[in-house]
């Protein structure tokens, strides 16, 4: 009961329960949080049964890593050099995409404030499986220089699953490329199954996320 009250308090005006007049003149009740969003639980994506097909799929996945253009902290400044001829990430099949629906890799580049974490979770959940997360910089590992900050998370793996950590403050673009290579290895070996791990432990992740995001005014599951 307390949780629902809290939810209504932070809900945006357009998402609140209300009565509207339909085009035919009748008055209907709408509840956008129920009507506009799907509340079915996501399903774990099983690997393909024939092994060689799964292997082929994994190879194909590893050759097209499309990252979401979402820079969260100071580390996002390391991503633009990757697009330049000097580092050239396109030769590895890595490219930037503007929307979550088109991308399958998320680079958490540096520190994450609670406000950004909320947006990150929404974006991450909208990405299509199989999806991968690279955590860049020491802030995502143990908080880095913001370890005692009032508004910055310390460990990213408490809130979302991480495939590859890239240590450093800041890591150079070369380190980022090495991270991509490592991610490719993991995908080819069939070990990059963190998206399924997230779905399996969804309740634990959600509890952790809701502990710090106090104005939870979005649907529980965003896909």
């Amino acid at each position, binding site marked *: 009961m307390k949780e629902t009250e809290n939810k209504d308090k932070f809900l945006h005006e357009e998402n609140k329960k209300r009565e509207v007049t339909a085009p035919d003149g009748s008055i209907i009740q709408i509840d956008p949080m129920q009507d506009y969003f799907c509340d079915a639980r996501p399903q774990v994506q099983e690997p393909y049964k024939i092994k060689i097909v799964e292997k082929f799929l994994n190879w194909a996945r590893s050759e097209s890593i499309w990252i979401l253009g979402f820079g969260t902290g100071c580390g996002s400044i390391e991503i633009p050099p990757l697009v330049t001829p000097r580092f050239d990430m396109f030769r590895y099949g890595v490219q930037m995409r503007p929307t979550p629906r088109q991308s399958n890799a998320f680079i958490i580049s540096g520190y994450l404030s609670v406000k950004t974490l909320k947006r990150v979770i929404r974006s991450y959940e909208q990405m299509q499986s199989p999806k991968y997360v690279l955590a860049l910089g020491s802030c995502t590992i*143990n*908080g880095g220089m913001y370890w005692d900050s*009032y*508004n910055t998370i*310390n*460990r990213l793996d408490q809130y979302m699953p991480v495939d590859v950590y890239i240590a450093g403050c800041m890591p150079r673009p070369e380190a980022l490329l090495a991270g991509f290579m490592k991610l490719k290895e993991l995908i080819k070996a069939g070990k990059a199954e963190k998206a399924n791990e997230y779905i399996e432990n969804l309740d634990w992740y959600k509890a952790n996320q809701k502990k*710090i995001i*106090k*104005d939870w005014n979005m649907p529980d599951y965003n896909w």
Partner: protein
Amino acid sequence: MKKIIENLGYKFILYEVEYQRKNLTFVTVDKENTVQLLAYLRDYEGFKHFVLMTAVDWIEDGLFQITYILNNPKKKIDLAIRTKILREKAKMTTAHHLWNQVATYQRELKEMFGIDFPGSPRVNESFILEGWDNIPPMRRDFDTKKYAEETYFPRLGRGTNDPSEYMKQKLYPNE
């Protein structure tokens, strides 16, 4: 610079004047005159550019110090206006009618220090801390480290081994 301060002295009560640099001076005035002084400086002395506005928590004296920094782009000088307000139920006159961007600074101060600016636009909306339910985090009685440890799952520090001790234990465990 000294001439401007002298002129100000005829019109307002200045408590402290501190000449920090050739082109930067700090002036302390009381709470009631602050916004008037800002308007005067903007309209008659050419301090047209509002640089920033910030607060300092003097917890021992029970005071907040608010500093406004103004810039005169023609003479290339800065003037900082300081004022002290009570820490209990902190309230300050709004200055958003002088410069639009002041409203944003005041919104931030409301969130970070809990200083209220009645009448300032959107001052009660959350700025960075969405859904914050603790005391404002920039106040000095807010224990940041304790809060972070309780909230954000701190990772334990890396274990270290002194090489000589380690080898001693490994090679001669009984001694």
